[in-house]
């Protein structure tokens, strides 16, 4: 062994120190690894899971809306959509171009996709197009390997089997707006749809259900690797409506014979709304898919107001259909007796003013029965004058006018029953007696919705405070009808007075000389009673009275009178009531009697044949009828305009 030089000794010593230092450093590494992997292991394991596991909410299937027999009015349908995850594409515009070569992508779709991509996180998929056909879907699926970030998404879309038929009742669903966000994360999901109108809106929480969740493993870029666990959530509950889909369909088709109609059909005993039609309507599917600007323009500027529900939100002077209220108020207050005679010379003078009867020649001397039957204005001017506005207003309120009825969908309006206090409060001018007279024939400031008119009829024939409603609390109607019907509280109006008024209304349709005799139901067992009305949209000038009326062709559609009819059936034991308002339909002689009454007649005849209160209809009874082609806006007829009635 050679002798070591001092330099070698020093080096060996220092090498030992160096080795010691290295051992110490490796021990430090070991200690640190032990700390991380043993002591802090649980903490880091949780963090690793938080890293990789995302909780994704699943939209629960929305509940169906069914009619009283369980027929679906709103359902869900499979919807195939192309979606893009913006962060997975290199250029979203180029990707959209590529998609457009495979399937139709409209400018609107494109704009919406780009807008969504900008607004949302880059890893949130944005929908390019919905409702793909099977063929379109296949074309995209085949191309997805060359289109990073593009995929087919299977979702449910709201589907309304009856199309526009019950749009105003059902409402529609659409993407959630900023205002509707409540902090519920379900609402922030891109494919969640919220009820925006009608039952969809009022029953949204029931229909919505509870969100499901999916635990998915994602990588650092948010791409889904696999699903770890899944909970499908609570599907939305079905909602059962009082509506009769068959009747709704029938009424819709019947109403489409006129330009613009509102029609309400009630079960007078239960308050079930069997049909609630505002014609024309719109297709609620348009809203789930997203409406284009042009379509919105068309719908919102149409003079016939397809978007508004005229049956509950349209306000009309009830005209002569209001006369039963005046008669009841007068009888109950003792202002008149049924035998009181009034002579109608065709007008009534009060101070300096002259109030005309629709029958220029006058009705001669008549009692209550004939006054209702012939709808004599002078009789009701006189009756209103004797009764006073406050009695009339009180009676109208008891029958549902002047206040919202508390319907179970939004959009209902209160209407207006004027009285002294209202007049003073709104105009500062005291009530004039002339206004009582005008109110006595349902004109002036009186305003009511078709739903209120139908409710009035239901309360008249039952004497009870019937409240109309769309929702059925008892579920789908069992065969043979409901066993038990909850009775509404009585109105406290004397049955004798009610009988007198109903007797008069029966005569309107069924006695010769009644204003709606032409529209009577000839089968006596189905016979209806009712009251016609024509309400003025514009003032009739003195000039027109003096010089005969303006030619038909001089009156624009928008200025023509509304035609109204309120009816009940069958006459002996009324079960169904119906109110019809034909907007600007008062062009023909007798307005309400000629245009609105036939609709009421057809509806009441049909409903009695089906009798939805008691039995489940045969399948063929709700078979689709080819819809009539809606007529063009009426061309002015050559005949001179007849007096109001």
């Amino acid at each position, binding site marked *: 062994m050679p002798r070591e030089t001092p330099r070698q000794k020093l080096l060996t010593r220092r*090498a030992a120190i160096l080795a010691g230092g*290295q051992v110490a450093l490796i021990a430090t590494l070991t200690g*640190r690894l032990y700390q991380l992997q*043993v002591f802090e292991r649980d903490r*880091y394991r949780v963090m690793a899971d938080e*890293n990789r596991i995302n909780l994704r909410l699943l939209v629960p299937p929305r509940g169906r809306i069914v009619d009283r027999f369980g027929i679906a009015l709103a359902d869900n349908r499979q919807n195939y959509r192309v979606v893009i995850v913006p962060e997975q594409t290199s250029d979203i515009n180029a990707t959209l171009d590529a998609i457009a070569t495979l399937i139709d992508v409209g400018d609107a779709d494109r704009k919406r996709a780009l807008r969504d991509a900008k607004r949302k996180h880059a890893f949130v998929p944005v929908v390019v197009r919905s409702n793909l056909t099977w063929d379109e879907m296949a074309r995209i699926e085949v191309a997805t390997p060359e289109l990073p970030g593009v995929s087919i998404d299977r979702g449910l879309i709201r589907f309304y089997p009856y199309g526009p038929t019950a749009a105003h009742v059902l409402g529609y669903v659409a993407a959630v707006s900023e205002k509707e966000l409540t902090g519920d994360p379900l609402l922030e999901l891109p494919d969640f749809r919220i009820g925006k109108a009608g039952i969809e809106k009022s029953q949204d929480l029931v229909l919505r259900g509870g969100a499901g969740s999916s635990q998915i493993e994602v990588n650092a870029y948010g791409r889904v690797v696999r699903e770890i666990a899944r909970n499908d959530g609570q599907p939305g509950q079905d909602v059962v409506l009082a509506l009769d889909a068959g009747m709704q369909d029938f009424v819709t088709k019947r109403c489409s014979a006129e330009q613009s109609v509102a029609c309400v059909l009630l079960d007078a005993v239960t308050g079930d709304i069997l049909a609630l039609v505002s014609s024309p309507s719109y297709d609620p599917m348009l809203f789930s898919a997203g409406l284009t600007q042009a379509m919105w323009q068309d719908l919102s500027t149409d003079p016939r107001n397809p978007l508004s529900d005229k049956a509950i939100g349209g306000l009309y002077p009830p005209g002569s259909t209001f006369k039963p209220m005046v008669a009841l108020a007068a009888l109950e207050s003792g202002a008149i007796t049924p035998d009181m005679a009034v002579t109608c010379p065709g007008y009534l003078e009060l101070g300096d003013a002259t109030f005309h009867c629709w029958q220029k020649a006058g009705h001669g001397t008549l009692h209550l029965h004939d006054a209702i039957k012939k709808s004599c204005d002078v009789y009701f001017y006189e009756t209103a004058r004797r009764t006073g506005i406050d009695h009339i207003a009180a009676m109208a309120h008891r029958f549902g006018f002047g206040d919202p009825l508390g319907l179970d969908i939004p959009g209902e309006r209160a209407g207006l029953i004027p009285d002294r206090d209202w007049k003073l409060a709104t105009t500062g001018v005291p009530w004039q007696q002339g206004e009582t007279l005008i109110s006595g024939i349902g004109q002036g400031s009186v305003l009511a919705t078709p739903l209120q008119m139908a409710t009035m009829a239901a309360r008249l024939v039952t004497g009870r405070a019937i409240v109309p409603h769309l929702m059925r609390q008892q579920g789908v109607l069992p065969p043979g009808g409901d066993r038990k019907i909850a009775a509404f509280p009585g109105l406290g109006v004397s049955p004798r007075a009610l009988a007198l008024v109903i007797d008069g209304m029966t005569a309107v349709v069924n006695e010769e000389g009644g204003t709606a005799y032409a529209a009577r139901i000839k089968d006596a067992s189905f016979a209806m009673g009712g009251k016609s009305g024509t309400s003025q949209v514009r003032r009739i000038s003195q000039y027109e009275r003096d010089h005969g009326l303006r030619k038909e062709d001089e009156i624009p559609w928008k200025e023509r009178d509304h035609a109204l009819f309120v009816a009940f059936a069958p006459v002996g034991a009324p079960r169904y009531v119906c109110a019809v308002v034909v907007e600007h339909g008062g062009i023909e002689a007798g307005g309400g009697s000629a245009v609105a009454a036939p609709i009421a007649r057809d509806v009441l005849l049909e409903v009695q044949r089906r009798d939805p209160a008691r039995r489940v209809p045969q399948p063929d009874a709700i078979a689709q009828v080819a819809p009539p082609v809606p007529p063009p806006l009426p061309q002015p007829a050559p005949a001179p305009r007849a007096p109001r009635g």
Partner: protein
Amino acid sequence: MVSFSSDIGRHELSLADKVRGLQWGLILLICVISSIGFAMLYSAANGNLQPWASKQLVRFAIAFIPMIAAALIDIRHWFRVSYWLYAIALALIVAVDLRGVIGMGAQRWIDLGFIQLQPSELMKIALILALARYFHSLPSETSPRLLDLIAPSFLIVVPVLLVLKQPDLGTAMMLLAAGAIVFFLAGVRLWMFGAAIAAIAGAAPLIWSMLRDYQKARLYTFLSPDTDPLGAGYHIMQSKIALGSGGMFGKGFLLGTQTHLSFLPEKQTDFIFTMIAEEFGLVGGLCLLALYAMVIAYGFVIALRSRNHFGRLLGLGLATNFFLYVFINTAMVIGLIPVVGVPLPLISYGGTAMVTVMFGFGLLMNVGIHRDVRVSRLGESQMA
């Protein structure tokens, strides 16, 4: 010291002697560690040989050639060319600074067409060679005098500053540390180290001003990684999550969630140790560290058996250099030191580091083979 008497008295070693003298145990260790590397690269690619594992395997095979060549060439040749190698490495670093290609935000490579050469890696070995030769040539009786240290200090500082300017903080740190350790082994007095540290501390503000923003950010991040988990602290935070969640025995081969779901950055290069510790746990990580420790210990034994000063300094320098790779990389991924970009030797994906490290092992084995060769101060040799 153990010596093999059969070698004594020979003037020259035959090729057969040299091959017989190769450290087969060391070669086995290298192969085992590299195989762990291939397996982890296979895992990093989610169970695919492409794009990393197969390429790395080819590189490893190719790197065997310079390793064996380095081992077999006579140590006196290496002694003679050591300054030239240093000069070439330095020239290449300058060339990189002048005409480099942009990669990873730093100019570090020179494109030779078939390989992207990283001269700073080459410098790690050239520096040790040059310093070993320098100290070998000093009079052997005493510790080096202060005047003797001026030239070798320049040998260290010039490449350190050039590499720092690239900027490559990790390599600069390694060069500085390796140089300092050769100084230490050469017997430089301890007070001189104290003075040097004081001088560096004094110059710290100047160095700070030379650092790039991302390097400053890394230092800040190192000091408090939790403050900005999605920014610069992301790497180290994700690395710690991966390590910690690996636990004692790991999540299993190919089952590391952090790595396979791409939360762990640079998993195939600088952060591959994290992946090993995630998939094989503390046990796996410590086994790997033990293998590295064995390699380093092997290096120390080889060096200390050498009977010439050059061989001892070279062997210890190379073993320490290897230790620095392992320590800096591991300490970095477990959050003990800032992220500086030093690969895990033999395992991290990358060509230059693989070739350099294997070349270093070649020289180490060379020291073992030529342990009894006497090297004169000027490189003339005679057998003991």
